[in-house]
């Protein structure tokens, strides 16, 4: 076993050499398929991951899709095969914007888009700014780096409960500062119910999300060769120019992945609104994940909930595909 794997990689190397046109003698050696030489080892190594992904992600997703075509209510929890087929009824209910359920879903979708746009944009901006400002070494850099990672390290529920306390109308810090200390509002405002709740949600989400952007960008910055800056410096480029001409363009591939990941996490985020508002979010901050949870587990309408989930997944798939297409085209353009 051992020996075969070694020769495998040796022949692999020589194959690469011969294909470049150096001495074709080796080519005549009979090629054994890689699969046979290494045995089933790679498959064996992947087995646990594959089984678990199947059990926890793939199979449930398939069941979810099947359920979205059935009239699935709490009566069928112990007998899921018994739920009658209903074709596209659940989807019709979900997208019928003239009926209450469809209208609420559309509203929730809209709220989620606005929320995601601001939450991702600000988290990305803060993260990039922080990472660039900490790129050079100076006194206190290590401490600041640790401080900036604190929101990332704090467990979501502990941090968001604290924000919920800060946003309390009568005994919270936010109103104390805005109303009592700065006098900006006539009356203490409500933050966790009513129109302001979307602002509260965005602020908490940005607070929680930017350290991740900081972390990723900080790691990305370490891959930029120092010589680039030195060369630019010799050519007389100031620090602002270096940031614009070297740092930001070099970060482009990192940023593309980062923005996509932030988008998916923020769009799907359940934890923040759930801890901030509880099981039912205010209308103005009714994120889609909470909305589906509410439709499935509170009103027990699993079929419609599943249809909503599938629609959400389709939307995310399309957005991701379009995004990947645009960014890969952009990268090709940059290379040319």
């Amino acid at each position, binding site marked *: 076993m*051992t020996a075969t794997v070694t020769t495998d990689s040796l022949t692999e190397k020589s194959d690469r050499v011969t294909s470049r046109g150096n001495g074709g003698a080796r080519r005549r050696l009979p090629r054994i398929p890689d699969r046979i030489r290494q045995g089933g080892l790679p498959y064996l190594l992947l087995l646990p991951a594959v089984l678990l992904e199947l059990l926890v992600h793939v199979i449930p997703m398939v*069941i979810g899709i099947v359920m979205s075509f059935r009239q699935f209510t709490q009566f069928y929890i112990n007998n899921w095969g018994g739920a009658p087929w209903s074709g596209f009824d659940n989807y019709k209910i979900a997208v019928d914007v003239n009926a209450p359920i469809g209208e609420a879903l559309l509203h929730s979708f809209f709220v989620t888009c606005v929320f995601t746009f601001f939450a991702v944009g600000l988290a990305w901006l803060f993260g990039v700014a922080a990472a660039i400002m900490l790129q050079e070494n100076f006194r206190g850099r290590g401490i600041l780096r640790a401080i900036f990672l604190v929101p990332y*390290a704090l467990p979501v529920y502990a941090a968001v409960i604290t924000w919920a306390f800060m946003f309390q109308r009568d005994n919270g810090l936010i109103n104390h500062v805005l109303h009592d200390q700065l006098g900006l509002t006539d009356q203490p405002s409500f933050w966790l119910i009513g129109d302001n709740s979307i602002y509260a949600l965005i602020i908490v989400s940005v607070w929680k999300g930017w350290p991740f952007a900081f972390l990723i960008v900080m790691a990305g910055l370490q891959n930029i060769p120092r010589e680039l800056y030195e060369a630019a410096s010799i050519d007389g480029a100031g620090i*602002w120019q270096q940031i614009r001409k070297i740092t930001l363009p070099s970060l482009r591939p990192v940023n593309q992945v980062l923005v996509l990941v932030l988008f998916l996490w923020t769009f*799907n985020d359940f934890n923040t609104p*759930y801890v901030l508002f509880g099981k039912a979010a205010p209308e103005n901050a009714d994120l889609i994940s909470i909305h589906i949870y509410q439709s499935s587990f509170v009103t027990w309408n699993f079929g419609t909930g599943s249809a909503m989930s599938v629609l959400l*997944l389709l939307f995310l798939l399309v957005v991701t595909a379009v995004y990947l297409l645009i960014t890969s085209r952009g990268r090709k353009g940059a290379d040319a």
Partner: protein
Amino acid sequence: MAAPQSFLWARRFVLAFLTAFALLPVYVMVSSSLKPLQDVSGKFHWIPSGLTVKPYFDIWDTVPLARYFVNSLIVAGAATVLSVIIAVFSAYAVSRYKFRGKRVFTVTVLSTQMFPGILFLLPLFLIFVNIGNSTGVALYGSRGGLILTYLTFSLPFSIWMLIGYFDSIPRDLDEAALVDGCGPIRALFKVVVPAAVPGIVAVAVYAFMTAWGEVLFASVMTNDTTRTLAVGLQGYATQNDVYWNQVMAASLVVSVPIVAGFLLLQRYLVAGLTAGAVK
């Protein structure tokens, strides 16, 4: 290189703003946890009117915090260990071998990242209930079910990151071990794993934090005895009379170990991300 004044001022401003933003809730958490109840029930004050450590004793009686703590430790710890081991094996296979289905595997695993949790929460709940009904293996409401679920949450990112990390370790190293007569698995543990410690620590930190902070599945998949901190902590906040000082004290208690551990290991996380995920 001497930075111009404009940069220095911009840096001071940005860093001061972000420091204040990052630490504001921490200040509220710490100061409010030391206030007597009448102080947190009234208007907020930056400076506590009187200091007390009573909330730190009361939190254990108001809700069974110790039990939740143990549950969270068991669930997050087990999910982390299993997830790291499985990710190491998978990443080794992908990084070192050519085989049919390699691309399908990596693409499928990565794309599970984008599934909204809510999409498979309900079916998974049904699977667990029905496995329980037909085989008697209680997954629903058990720690085992939650461990199984959580370990797959961090798995895609862990595999992805470790592939990058293993790729950055020269193949000559483990090939030399293979020539010396090690089997592939021994070569993995004797050569590749020790060389990849920063990446593995980074992945472990990520897995632990993912499991420690998860709320959605914890709230649906647990019962009174298996409840984790994620759900348990809401016990203070949803009662008619909210003991905010106790909520803050409990939040601090559950945060300190994980924040301390994270800050100790954060260098590994950056090193792991640099070599693995961000390339």
